[in-house]
């Protein structure tokens, strides 16, 4: 873990709460940080900046509908970009990320090494926030599994599995396959009608074709598909050899298709009826919603019946209600929905059946609309009617597809073809064909020959088409079976892998949870797979098995479980980064479990760099004592202001540096403001060092609320009581500081008043006053300030380390 990537520095500018540049120096050994700040002071802006740097988003904000525009500090100049810069323990990874106003972002580090690093960390989970730590516990079993898969980098596994399943389902529901199945049935019916057998093999068809061919030409024999083809070609050529033969053949074809005109008319009327039924269903809004709502209602019933929700509460919103009554209502609703779905199912079934008949109708229409038929056997009116029927057929084909695709309304004019007209047209055609046959005056022998040849040709066409369709369906079936096997094997492999991961995580979660709660009689905490696709926590409490844990665990215990899972997953799956951000998670803990958490971080994760944010001042003070100062440092946030944004309370040394920086950039106002804070910090430091009464009982955050005047008065009072630093020179320096404090106070609060505008010279004078004042408290020998920690217990005066200076 020592080689993992950690933070050395973090600089944020214009991002979220950070209006001006703020920086955190973790030092070369990547110290862990405890950051104290009151709610609203901007702690989360720091975790937001880190999250955005690595993931390009801020998850909890995105879920609330916030986007990249909300990442800019709202009080910064509208044209400025925002930046987050991170320095790492591997300097080659250092990079500044810029959020651009004009859109997009950029990294200053464009090396392949940095790109590889960012890619490797893409699945890492390294930020835990107060409001997200319980998220996992509160998820459904299915969501828990998805989250575990996300944590362990199974995103790609889920993606592959989902795509396999989608492809498998889509292939099974392929409309082309359904169409092929319909065509196959139709060809089968045609073949059965010719050979007179309900079930048949290829040999039955070939045998029948052989007999038919012999009636036409005794030299022909059919034992295989090739013979069949040769016989059909031979007989066809014979017919083509004579004009009369050709015409008779055409007349046969017209004769065969003419009766279908009536069937087509009825067929179209059938489609129109289905369309009307479909549109009637579409008017009922519940038809559209039924399938979705049914699933929701069924899930709710399951949740209530399997007691996944507390009795007396709504399974969705958790508000109190009569669950028995809800069950009854849901059951009634589902029955109603099923009725609607049944009607829709019937419409789809009828639609599929009609769809399969369209190709043969289109074939018949194309024969009847041939020029020869139009010219010789149809009136202009009949010709137009048949053309309209062909157009309507094509339009209805599209409508049948639409009906299957969506339950929504399909506007289309009502069916208005008069079937009696069609009957009349068919009769006219048949009479014309009969008249023409008479004119051609064929013999009975010729008639039989032509009919048999025509029958053989049709049988051949049907046989070839049937076999072709059958082969196509066979290929589909093989692909469906293969995809199904692959999907099932993939899912099994995934389950086995997840199981292994669960066992590994469980071991650590148990270890961490029992560490945090040694006396609470918890044991064998584990994540187990559940029926269906899901996982759930299980644990033993006083030896009794409990699952899910919320049955008995308190809020604090559940939060604790959340943090243990976060630590365990980070331990195993954060393979590159060695830092974790805990944003205000500790407030979810009972007071009694806070110190064990501090110990857990030190003992179980000694090589991890923590960034721990809290708004709890007691906890902050406790951590200062409990955590090793060599590995941790402590910072506090100033109160967030519109003008300054997020800012740290700095040590006087750093503050002096910042005052000079402000002067160098001619920001006199900023320098004055920082001087005011500097004076307060110095006074606070002196009071704390000397244990000035009336002040020492306050903890860090409370100290921040003191006014400088209060501090200086308290300090003056202390010195008066102890009769030290009472000489004129010391008094003069105290007065100078008091004046400086007053000037900076006015300067920073009344910047618009010209009379009180400060000059560079004023600031430089104030800095000199501060230095002179501070020198009063430094020993000329040991260079240390008197402090209660160097002084004998209950001594009135406090001494420096060597004891020479006593104040």
């Amino acid at each position, binding site marked *: 873990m020592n080689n993992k990537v950690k933070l050395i520095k973090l600089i944020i500018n214009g991002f979220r709460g950070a209006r001006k540049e703020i920086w955190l120096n973790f030092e070369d050994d990547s110290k862990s940080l405890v950051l104290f700040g009151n709610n609203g002071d901007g702690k989360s802006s720091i975790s937001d900046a880190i999250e955005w740097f690595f993931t390009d988003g801020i998850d909890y904000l995105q879920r609330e509908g916030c986007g990249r525009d909300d990442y800019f500090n709202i009080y910064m100049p509208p044209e400025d970009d925002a930046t987050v810069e991170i320095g790492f323990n591997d300097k080659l990874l250092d990079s500044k990320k810029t959020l651009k106003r004009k859109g997009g972002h950029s990294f200053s580090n464009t090396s392949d090494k940095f790109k590889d690093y960012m890619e490797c960390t893409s699945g890492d989970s390294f930020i835990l926030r107060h409001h997200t730590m319980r998220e996992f516990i509160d998820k459904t079993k299915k969501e828990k599994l998805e989250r575990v*898969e996300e944590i*362990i*980098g*199974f*995103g*790609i*596994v889920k*993606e*592959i599995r989902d*795509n*396999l399943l*989608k*492809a498998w389902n*889509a*292939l099974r529901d392929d409309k082309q396959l359904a169409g092929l199945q319909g065509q196959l049935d139709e060809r089968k019916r045609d073949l059965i009608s010719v050979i007179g057998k309900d079930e048949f093999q290829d040999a039955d068809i070939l045998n029948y074709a052989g007999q038919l061919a012999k009636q036409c030409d005794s030299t022909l024999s059919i034992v295989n598909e090739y013979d069949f083809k040769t016989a059909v070609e031979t007989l066809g050529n014979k017919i083509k050899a004579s004009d009369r033969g050709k015409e008779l053949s055409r007349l046969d074809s017209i004769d065969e298709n003419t009766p279908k005109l009536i069937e087509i008319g009825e067929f179209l009327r059938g489609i129109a009826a289905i369309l009307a039924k479909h549109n009637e269903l579409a008017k009922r809004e519940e038809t559209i919603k039924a399938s979705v709502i049914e699933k929701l209602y069924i899930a709710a019933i399951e949740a209530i019946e399997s007691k996944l929700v507390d009795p007396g509460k709504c399974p969705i919103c958790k508000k109190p209600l009569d669950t028995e009554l809800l069950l009854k209502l849901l059951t009634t609703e589902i029955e109603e929905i099923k009725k609607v779905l049944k009607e829709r199912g019937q419409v789809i079934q009828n639609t599929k059946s009609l769809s399969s008949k369209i190709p043969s109708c289109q074939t018949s229409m194309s024969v009847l609309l041939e020029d020869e038929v139009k010219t010789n056997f149809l009136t202009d009116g009949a010709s137009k009617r048949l053309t309209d029927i062909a157009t309507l057929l094509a339009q209805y084909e599209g409508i049948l597809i639409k009906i299957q695709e969506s339950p929504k309304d399909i506007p289309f004019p009502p069916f208005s073809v008069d079937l009696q007209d069609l009957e009349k047209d068919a009769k006219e055609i048949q009479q014309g064909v009969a008249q023409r046959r008479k004119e051609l005056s064929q013999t009975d022998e010729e008639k039989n020959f032509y009919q048999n040849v025509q029958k053989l040709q049709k049988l051949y066409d049907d046989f070839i088409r049937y076999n072709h369709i059958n*082969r*196509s369906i066979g*290929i*589909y079936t*093989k*692909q469906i*079976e*293969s*995809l199904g*096997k*692959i999907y099932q*094997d*993939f899912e099994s*492999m*995934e389950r086995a*892998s997840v199981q*292994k*991961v669960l066992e*590994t995580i469980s071991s650590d979660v148990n270890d961490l949870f029992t560490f945090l709660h040694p006396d609470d009689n918890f044991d064998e905490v584990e994540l187990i797979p559940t029926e269906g696709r899901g996982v759930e926590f299980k644990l033993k409490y006083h030896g009794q098995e409990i699952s899910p844990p919320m049955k008995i665990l308190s809020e604090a215990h559940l939060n604790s479980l959340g943090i243990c899972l976060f630590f365990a997953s980070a331990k*195993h*799956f954060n393979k590159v980064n060695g830092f974790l951000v805990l944003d205000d998670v500790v407030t979810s803990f009972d007071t009694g479990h806070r110190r064990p958490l501090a110990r857990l971080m030190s003992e179980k994760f000694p090589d991890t760099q923590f960034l721990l944010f809290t708004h709890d001042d007691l906890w902050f003070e406790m951590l200062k004592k409990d955590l090793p100062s060599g590995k941790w440092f402590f910072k506090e946030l100033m109160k967030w202001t519109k003008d300054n944004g997020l800012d740290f309370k700095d040590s006087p040394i750093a503050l002096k540096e910042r005052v000079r920086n402000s002067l160098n950039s001619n920001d006199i106002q900023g320098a004055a403001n920082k001087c005011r804070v500097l004076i307060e910090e110095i006074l606070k430091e002196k009071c704390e060092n000397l244990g000035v009464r009336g002040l020492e009982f306050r903890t860090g955050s409370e100290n921040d609320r003191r006014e400088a005047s209060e501090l200086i008065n308290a300090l003056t009072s202390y010195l008066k009581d102890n009769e030290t630093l009472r000489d004129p020179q010391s008094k003069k320096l105290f007065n100078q500081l008091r004046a400086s404090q007053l000037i900076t106070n006015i300067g920073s609060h009344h910047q618009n008043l010209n009379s009180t505008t400060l000059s560079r010279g004023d600031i430089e004078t104030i800095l000199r006053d501060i230095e002179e004042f501070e020198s009063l408290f430094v020993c000329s020998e040991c260079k240390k300030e008197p402090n209660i920690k160097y002084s004998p217990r209950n001594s009135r005066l406090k001494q420096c380390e060597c004891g020479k200076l006593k104040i």
Partner: protein
Amino acid sequence: MEEIKSGKELCDNFFESLMKREDIDLQVSTLLTKLYSQGNFTKEKILQGLKSLRTDK
């Protein structure tokens, strides 16, 4: 502790072993393995590839 395989390692191993499976249509397993290795393992690409196989036959 036994190293936990990453999602990518698991998928790599799965598709490697897929080609050796005799109970699965070789053309289908070849297609899926190819799409996976090219980073094109989407529903649309799978269906498109299967359609091509059916047309070619």
